[in-house]
């Protein structure tokens, strides 16, 4: 079966926190018609829904059919088909994939299904994602407590060494003390 995919211009529906959907693809097989809707303003790393509506030519919903969503990806020198997810059509014939695109550019999303005892069929929709260049994945380790960092340690070490230096200066002071008459052991440490 050949799958026919074409872009249909559509009015932008009001965005209510979710990207607006627009009709981008419809496929007609012998008995099954698939309408795939993809978000209008997809963004990298943002979860969105790709919805496939399965119905017969007479607009009868096709329910309880297992559907999988695929994409062809190249990575690490390998090119292969990747299964993005699966769903079962509900009573109104809708199956949705919750998906966040991770690369910029055009994605060809294939919807595969097997109707009744027929062969596996494929419908395609296209999704263009703009590049943002913003790093998504950030490793986080640790808790930032203001003021508690290595500068505190450096300050502590500096203070201790400054005090030690003052002790060293006292020794120099001893060496340079005035020549006064010597005194006994008065004023020494530890005299009870």
């Amino acid at each position, binding site marked *: 079966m050949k799958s026919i995919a074409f872009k249909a211009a559509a009015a932008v529906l009001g965005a209510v926190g979710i990207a607006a959907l627009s009709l981008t693809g419809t496929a007609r097989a012998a008995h099954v018609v698939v309408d795939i809707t993809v978000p209008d303003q997809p963004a990298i790393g943002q979860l969105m829904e790709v919805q496939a509506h399965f119905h017969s030519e007479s607009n009868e919903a096709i329910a309880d059919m297992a559907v999988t969503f695929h994409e062809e990806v190249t990575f690490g020198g390998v090119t292969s088909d990747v299964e993005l997810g699966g769903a079962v059509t509900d009573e109104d014939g809708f199956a949705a994939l919750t998906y966040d695109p991770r690369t910029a550019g055009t994605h060809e999303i294939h919807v595969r299904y097997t109707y009744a005892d027929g062969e596996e069929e494929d419908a395609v929709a296209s999704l263009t994602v703009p590049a943002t260049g913003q790093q998504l994945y950030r490793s986080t380790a640790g808790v930032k407590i203001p003021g508690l960092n*290595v500068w505190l*340690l*450096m300050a502590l*070490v500096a203070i*201790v*060494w400054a*005090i*030690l230096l*003052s*002790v*060293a200066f*006292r*020794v*120099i*002071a*001893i*060496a*340079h*003390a*005035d*020549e*006064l*008459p*010597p*005194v*006994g*052991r*008065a*004023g*020494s*440490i*530890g*005299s*009870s």
Partner: protein
Amino acid sequence: MEEVTSPWRDRLEETALAPVTGTSRAYYAWVAFLLVVIAWGVYAYSRQLQDGLVVTGMRDRISWGLYITTFVFFIGISHAGTLISAILRVSQARWRTPITRMAEFITLVSLICGALFVIIDLGRPDRVLNVIRYGRWQSPIVWDVLAITTYITASTAYLFLPMIPDLALFRDKLAGRVSGWRMWLYRVLSVRWRGTHSQWQSMGAAMTTAMILIIPIAVSVHTVVSWIFAMTLREPWNSTIFGAFFVAGAIFSGVAMLIIVMAILRKVYHLEEYITEKHFVYLGYLLGTFSLIMVYGNVSEYLTTGYKMSEGTEFHFRQLFLGEFAGFYWFYLLGGLVLPGLLILLPLTRNIWGVVAASVLVVAAMWVERYFIVVAGFRVPLMPYEPSTYAPTWVEISVVAAGFALFALLITLFVKIFPIMAVWEVAEDEPTTEPEPAVARLPNGAAPEPAGGAGG
């Protein structure tokens, strides 16, 4: 100096000067023996430098052994000086005066030996300066370097400052009796001490600062040494009490080492008049107290982990209490904590011999404790593999023996050059004489001598 010198004072000064002025054959023999041990250790280390650490018994699974054990042990010993000198000075306990010098020197020598063992343990000692060039303040090893260099500096200052008046004494009294270079040394190091009021003031101020500062420095030193283990995720080391436990162990082993050195020097240099049984008993009380604290630490650690038996604890308990390390552990607990505690507790054994025997047991047991903390800690398997064994080789044993010999040698050389006791502080304890009412008045100028000297 225009002080009145009494026979007691003269005797004190002569006792202090005696080690410096005469050298016996036994002394030379002892130094020669130590030098042989050190030379053999240097040879062993040269083999290690040539072939790498493969000549030791350490391997990937147990990657620290005798060297780090001895490093931690020596840093522990270094707490002798601080406790005795600083804390007793701060609390103005008079009985400390004859032993402060030895304590302070043991601190410095053991710090030097301890620091040496870290460098000996490195795989690339030629790159040791990388710690300065690229050091990370977040690393326990850098904390170690900072703490130990600070402590060495503070200890040197704390050793040197109260020694100035004694060095001046040497400078004044030893002319002609010792070689020229030593006279030069005393002249330089006594920094023109004349005993003037302003000099006493300066020294007093410096001493006050140093003795208060050195206590937190010393506590921090052994705490950060313990954190080299406690900052890892290995089961026997992943404990919050390591800092306090190690500091207690350090003071414990430091006091014991001080008692041993004190006993030896007292015998060899005839210091019985100044270091008496009282000193041994008082230090023995400290030893006994700390043995109780150590028992408490052991109970805390093992009861809390053993009650839960989480990952790794069962293996560690088996190897420590029943298996490969059982001999070490029970010797440490019973021979190194309980038995010395009993020796101090029982009046029968609370004398010089009892205290010295207890100290020897403690020093041996504390080295053994560091050994099983390091090696048994490493031995607990992290992943499913067979636990390894560690057996030190002749290289490690030779180098450790050389380290102890160096420790003994430095102390031996010290007493040959520097005053063995804080003469001016001990002199403050000169027994004063009061004419008893029943005794006939003596002619002016004559001072009655108390019988038996100032001891007791």
